[in-house]
């Protein structure tokens, strides 16, 4: 069976032109997939998680029962993850957090959380990826490396495709700004090297220079600024080079404001390169249900948000939660090491299709269907466009949405 127009459940590109071949219940071939996507589809059955309590394998129903018991008895549970599952599951997770009076956070807090903070200060002037494909004659990648992290971005959305007004790469100028010459820099017309931690200063100097101030901006950046001012339609794609480096949200704030300023001269936009395929969805669902896209707590009976107070890394580092439900993410792999201990010390429940490092320290493991391969649902692309994930394989495993729905029932009983 050949499935066409399948939506990829890996990165924020959310490519929806995948062709997946399924034979005898196995994925045997994929087309239009990047290397990482192919690996996800073809290897999805490897290292599958087994249901367990205290490392002993149990029927999944028992694991779910135990999870409900843990959550019900916790005073300050943490629910974390969400970005690699679909929206219905996310909405159930938020409801569960409300019922429990829990803290709920999603992976943006260690990814583009600073972008959200910057946006809350300055707003964000953006466009969908098709606008870039159709109109952009200047594309700047600042602090991101699509060649390794968003592998079909160049081909589908930015550098190579034929757009309404731009035929191909020759009609576009590509600039890469980074601390090192990445694989992405190889396809750029210009590579501009920036020192680690210098983004806020340089972008601020650019803003000042744009406004006619006499400031010590280097020639390289003066040239870049002039290119930005004089293009017809420019875009900055930025990534964790801005959000994770010194300055964090201030770096992003400065970049957002630079783009606002550039709109006095020409048409210019900026878009974050969102990592996981549904991290935009996690922020979206949290925002429409609670008002806030991450770091939310329900202990008052209504949503309160405070990054730093309710963001997962901080909650774990300060040992403020007494139970954790980790959904579609792997904090023991992705968080600083001193937060791992607490996840091992408290009763942690993991919902994941595969064995993860967090599952190795968890008290309860609940295997789930892989969203986008074995379960349908909505995912939101990096530019906010929603698409419906397809199901190409059957599985006896429950989806995240089904497990969470059961947890809600049991916790309320």
């Amino acid at each position, binding site marked *: 069976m050949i499935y066409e127009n399948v939506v990829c459940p*890996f990165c924020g590109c959310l490519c929806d032109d995948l062709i997946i071949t399924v034979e005898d219940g196995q994925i045997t071939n994929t087309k239009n997939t990047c*290397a*990482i996507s192919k*690996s*996800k589809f073809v*290897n*999805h059955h*490897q*290292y599958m998680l087994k249901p367990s309590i205290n490392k002993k394998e149990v029927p999944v129903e028992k694991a779910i029962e135990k999870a409900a018991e843990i959550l019900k008895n916790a005073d300050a549970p943490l629910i974390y993850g969400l970005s690699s599952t679909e929206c219905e599951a996310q909405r159930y997770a938020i409801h569960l957090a409300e019922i429990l009076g829990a803290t709920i*956070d999603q992976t943006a*807090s*260690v990814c583009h*959380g*600073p972008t959200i*903070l910057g946006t809350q200060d300055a707003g964000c002037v953006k466009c969908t990826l098709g606008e870039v494909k159709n109109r952009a004659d200047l594309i700047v990648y600042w602090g991101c*490396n699509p*060649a*390794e*992290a968003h*592998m079909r971005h160049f081909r589908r959305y930015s550098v190579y495709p034929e757009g309404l007004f731009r035929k191909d790469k020759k009609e576009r100028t590509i600039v890469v700004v980074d*601390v*090192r*010459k990445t694989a992405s820099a190889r396809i750029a017309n210009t590579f501009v090297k920036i020192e*680690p*931690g210098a983004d806020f200063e340089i972008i601020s100097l650019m803003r000042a220079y744009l406004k006619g101030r006499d400031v010590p901006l280097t020639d390289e950046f003066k040239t870049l600024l002039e290119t930005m001012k004089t293009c017809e339609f420019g875009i900055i794609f930025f990534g*964790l*080079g801005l*959000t*994770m*480096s*010194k300055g*964090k*949200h201030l770096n992003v704030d400065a970049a957002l404001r630079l783009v606002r300023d550039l709109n006095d001269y020409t048409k210019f936009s900026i878009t974050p390169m969102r*990592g996981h395929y549904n991290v935009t969805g996690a922020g979206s669902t949290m925002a429409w249900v609670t008002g806030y896209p*991450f*770091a939310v707590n329900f202990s008052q009976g209504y949503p309160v948000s405070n*990054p*730093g*107070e309710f*963001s997962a*890394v*901080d909650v774990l*580092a300060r040992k403020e939660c007494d139970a954790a439900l980790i959904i579609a993410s792997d904090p*023991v*792999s*992705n*968080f*600083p*090491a*001193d*937060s*791992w*201990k607490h996840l*091992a010390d408290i009763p942690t429940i993991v919902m994941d299709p*595969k*064995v*993860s*490092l967090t599952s*190795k*320290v968890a008290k309860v493991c609940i295997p789930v269907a892989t969203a986008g391969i074995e379960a349908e649902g909505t995912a939101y692309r990096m530019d906010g466009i929603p698409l419906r994930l397809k199901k190409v394989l059957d599985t006896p495993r429950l989806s995240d949405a089904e497990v969470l729905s059961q947890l809600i029932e049991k916790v309320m009983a």
Partner: protein
Amino acid sequence: MKIVLLSGRTTKQGVTAEIGKTSDDYLQNVAVIQLNQKVMEKLGLTDGDAVEVKTKYGSAVVKCRKSDIGENMGFMPYGPWANLLIGSDTQSTGMPDSKGVEAEVVKTDKDVESVDDILNRIVEGRK
């Protein structure tokens, strides 16, 4: 040798993570640090040798790989080894200092730790 430590995605890290994080493929492709060729020469390292990377938050033993990254930098793919070296102070942003931590790199005889080794070390008392 002092460097500024960066971490980020790589294709191989992504591909092997999707196989499984307890796989050998993952270990081979993620427990690595990219260093400038000259820096490696100064430390007496050839490609694939073990190095110990130390920051004020912890240490990790990984393999070195030569690259044309700046001499004052080192790059590790996202994953548990890089996270041994990063602290959890987010300055109230929620985001740790995942890029830009000061690190020291030394040649070592120690073996590269597997994920189980790391978990045993960090998460004491786990069997």
